[in-house]
């Protein structure tokens, strides 16, 4: 049953990405290109997504999920080196290609060979990360 809900979640997520134009790299790069022909669409997508999510988070207070034991606990509010370095690296890749992980997966069927190569490179980066993280942490102790 949890898998069925997961499939529906993925489907709604993907449909939302397609309809909103977020699988079109021109719209994403247009949003990031403040000094070019700026495209505000992404702000509306973010706003449209954050409103139902904020209501859902409010609803979790004092309740339990339907098919799980507990809601996820908030992460420690620690702003570490990995959060900052990782987000800067992600932002650079996002700007260069105009794809982030959700749209890269959602556009698999119509993204062509370029989209497939991006996805494979992204997954390779994800496989490499635990080793890189261990390397960083041993070279520079966490602050």
């Amino acid at each position, binding site marked *: 049953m949890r898998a069925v809900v997961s499939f529906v979640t993925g489907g709604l997520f993907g449909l939302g990405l397609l309809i909103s134009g977020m699988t079109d790299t021109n719209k994403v790069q247009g949003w990031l290109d403040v000094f070019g022909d700026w495209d505000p669409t992404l702000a509306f997508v973010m706003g449209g997504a954050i409103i139902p999510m904020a209501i859902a988070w409010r609803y979790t207070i004092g309740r339990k999920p339907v098919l799980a034991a507990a809601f996820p606990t908030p992460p420690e509010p620690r702003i570490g080196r990995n959060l900052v*370095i990782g987000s800067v690296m992600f932002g650079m890749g996002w700007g260069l290609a105009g794809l982030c992980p959700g749209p890269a997966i*959602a556009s698999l069927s119509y993204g062509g060979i370029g989209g497939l190569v991006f996805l494979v490179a992204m997954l390779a980066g994800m496989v490499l990360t635990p080793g890189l993280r261990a390397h960083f942490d041993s070279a520079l102790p966490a602050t």
Partner: protein
Amino acid sequence: MQYDWIMGLIGGGLIGLAGALFLLVNGRVMGASGIIGGLVDGSGRSDWAERAALIAGLVTVPAIAALAMGGSETNLTGNWVIIIAAGLLVGIGTRLANGCTSGHGVCGISRLSLRGIVATAFYIGAGGLTMVLFKHVLGVI
């Protein structure tokens, strides 16, 4: 186009509904990089079926919808060096930071998570600077 913001709002609402469904029923945060990252690096072995089912929905539903709309276009660059470099940066960066646009952006900001807000500020800032450097200064994208 003049109606793009309406489509953005509707599509964004669907993304938010998806995240709300996953949270309220399965008790989980809908973060694309975490869900697929756990599948490929082995850290999500215990709940692989749930992860794989979400990815299956995320691929098949837009595939059918795009066909019904008469096709869709990602307008991705044809420069292979940029495609591969960007893919590696997105893969490593999102796993190092433990989240991307959906996890830190949509799910984090909506619960007023400081980590989500800081991560989003850094990836949007870095994306904006990347556009300045690689598009306006170097002219390669």
